[in-house]
């Protein structure tokens, strides 16, 4: 096993970036690290981008974009940057002055273009850069701890000379991804400095945070590789939430433990070259300075957590979801959620459940791990159920080839480089995928289609406005495919389409899912069901550490039920991984 992570025993650079997908606990680990360093007498600035503002509760101080000293913890200052808010304020700065001067419909098209993930990403980078490039910051603090890191895509875009040359000035080739940078040429030097600091071995360490599960470790390997390639080479891996002991008699506890060990054993080879530490799975939530300190003392459980054993309550299960879709004759079902929440398994179980009830079902997945093949275990299924796979990598590659074929002609090398990087944006993948599953839905007229992913509201609105735009644009050759045109109104029809949001009963996954829902609502799509997956609260275990965690799930389930979901169901954490049709059949009943 890996050594346990403790800031006391690790040589740490002035800038520390914690990175990882939502729900891996990077804010908690960043926060605990900052407290540990401050406790040792270092002057520390903690910069959080946690939209949950968990940190505000932890530190009992209202945080702002400007660093303030934390009274309860000596030597620690903190600031909270909300990239969504930063993007929003950027949007408002751009659009606001024109309210009343331009028609509302015109303003709406502007706002949508400034609502993408890229705008948020760049807005966050803009905030980091202020701290990274300001020499006074390092005179004041020994360490600056960030609970997130810029993505490879952002860094590569900034690295391209074309990002800074005439493209932005003349805006003949301005790209969306640099939206917030447009017209901010004056910041060139600041960004260059920030980028240089990031790749300085002596200044910056990237701490990759992952959970001991396969998809999280794969994601960490991908991020490690991508950021290394761009020059951020000083990296550490922290595997967070490793269950230290198991109760051999407890089925859930043993399965939980075994699955983690297996995932770690099979971790991608790329990660083997990165210095790796572990942090224990703990029964308590990482809020409050005391609990944060416990983390590096490697307490798995506290007295308070041990006392807080939750009772198991009866909660609606997946069968309700399936019965509801059947009763309403829903034809297209999307399961959506961030990576690692199990949306492919949920989609498979819904498909199997409907097929078992006598319906013809087509299930399609975008899971890069081809989880479906795994889920069905290659066994015999049901003749009413057909399965297909959309490979995002293939779809994106096809899309890129198409773009370069159509558009690459007559571009200079520099423009071509820009075009290529532009296509590395998350929007490209979404649009390529949307086209692919529009084709699937189009073909399936007499089947129920279940898809384990869904477009974001942003993509839908872009497609929508483009459709309107193309209607007017007689000369345009780049047309929206018919299948896409047909799918848009179908998606909006609640009689025909059901969107299922899949999440976990933890802070970040719930908040991320809430944001997905907001985004879909902007595009007039109301998610019908929320499914809380892998719930320890709903599972039967006597393991005190797992019970402690189960108790902390309660408030998040409550939030989903009370504030977020129209209808909800809870799926317990299952000791067996659902392999094979028959197992899925059980699962859906």
């Amino acid at each position, binding site marked *: 096993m890996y050594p346990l992570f403790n800031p006391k025993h690790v040589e740490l650079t002035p800038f520390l970036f914690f990175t990882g997908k939502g729900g891996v606990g990077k804010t908690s680990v960043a926060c605990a690290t900052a407290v540990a360093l401050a406790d040792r007498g270092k002057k520390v600035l903690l910069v959080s981008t946690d939209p949950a503002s968990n940190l505000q509760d932890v530190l009992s101080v209202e945080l702002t974009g400007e660093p303030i000293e934390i009274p309860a913890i000596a030597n620690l200052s903190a600031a909270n940057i909300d990239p969504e808010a930063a993007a929003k304020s950027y949007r408002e700065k751009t659009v606001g002055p024109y309210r009343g001067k331009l028609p509302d419909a015109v303003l709406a098209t502007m706002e949508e*273009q400034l609502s993408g993930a890229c705008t948020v990403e760049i807005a966050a980078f803009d905030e980091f850069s202020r701290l990274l490039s300001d020499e006074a910051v390092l005179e004041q603090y020994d360490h600056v701890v960030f609970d997130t890191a810029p993505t490879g895509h952002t860094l590569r875009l900034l*690295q391209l000379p074309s990002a800074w*040359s005439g493209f932005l000035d003349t805006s003949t080739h301005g790209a969306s991804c640099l939206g917030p940078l447009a017209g901010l040429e004056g910041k060139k030097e600041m960004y*260059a400095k920030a980028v240089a600091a990031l*790749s300085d071995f002596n200044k910056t360490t990237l701490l990759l945070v992952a959970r001991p599960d396969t998809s999280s470790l794969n994601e960490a390997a991908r991020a490690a590789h991508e950021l290394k390639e761009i020059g951020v080479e000083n990296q550490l891996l922290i595997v967070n939430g490793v269950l230290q002991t198991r109760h051999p008699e407890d089925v859930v506890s043993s399965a939980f433990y075994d699955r983690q060990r297996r995932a770690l054993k099979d971790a991608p080879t790329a990660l083997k070259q990165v210095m790796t530490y572990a942090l224990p799975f703990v029964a308590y939530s990482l809020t409050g300075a005391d609990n944060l300190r416990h983390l590096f003392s490697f307490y798995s459980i506290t007295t308070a957590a041990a006392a807080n054993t939750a009772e198991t309550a009866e909660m609606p299960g997946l069968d309700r979801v399936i019965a509801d879709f059947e009763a309403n004759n829903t034809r297209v079902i999307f399961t959506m959620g961030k990576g690692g929440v199990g949306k492919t398994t949920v989609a498979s179980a819904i498909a199997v459940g409907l097929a078992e009830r006598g319906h013809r079902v087509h299930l399609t997945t975008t899971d890069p791990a081809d989880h479906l093949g795994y889920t069905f275990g290659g066994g015999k299924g049901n003749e009413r159920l057909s399965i297909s796979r959309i490979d995002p990598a293939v779809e994106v590659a096809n899309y890129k080839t198409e773009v370069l074929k159509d558009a690459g002609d*007559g571009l200079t090398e520099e423009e071509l480089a820009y075009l290529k990087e532009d296509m590395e944006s998350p929007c490209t993948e979404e*649009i390529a995928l949307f086209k692919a599953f529009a084709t699937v839905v189009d073909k399936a007229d007499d089947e129920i289609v279940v898809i384990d992913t869904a477009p974001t509201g942003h993509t839908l609105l872009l497609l929508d406005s483009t459709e309107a735009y193309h209607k007017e*644009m007689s*000369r345009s050759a*780049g047309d929206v495919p018919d299948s896409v045109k047909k799918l848009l109104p179908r998606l909006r029809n609640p009689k025909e389409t059901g969107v299922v949001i899949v999440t976990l009963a933890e802070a970040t996954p719930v908040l991320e899912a809430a944001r997905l829902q907001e985004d879909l609502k902007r595009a007039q799509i109301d998610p019908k069901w929320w499914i809380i997956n892998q719930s320890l609260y709903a599972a039967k275990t006597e393991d005190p550490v797992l019970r402690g965690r189960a108790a902390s799930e309660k408030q998040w389930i409550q939030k989903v039920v009370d504030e977020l979901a129209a209808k909800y169901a809870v799926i317990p954490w299952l000791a067996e991984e659902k392999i094979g049709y028959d197992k899925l059949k059980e699962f859906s009943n």
Partner: protein
Amino acid sequence: MNKIEIYDPAMCCSTGVCGPSVDPELTRLASAVYSLEKKGFDIKRFNLANEPAAFVENALVNQALVDKGPEALPMVLLNGEIVRVASYPTNDEFAQWFGITPEQLQEKPKVKQSIKFSI
């Protein structure tokens, strides 16, 4: 000399790659404008998403937006008069306006001076 102004709709990117389908029209236009600029012609392009001010300041453009909404874009002005609504000029039109041959629009522009830094 003739002066051309192009008022684009709010666009993700003027290369058109971010849209639901690649629009060769946009890449053609971007290249043509780029090449005209390099030749020193008076041609300007405004993206609603980045430069909304231009859409307010020009009274004709503003009025067209009030009357027709965002569907009026893209709009093209020749010497301050609207000559095209809801579509872009062809290369032939550009050539005619600036007194050059359409072929000259396809010449590859030289790589521009740029500031480079590496990480």
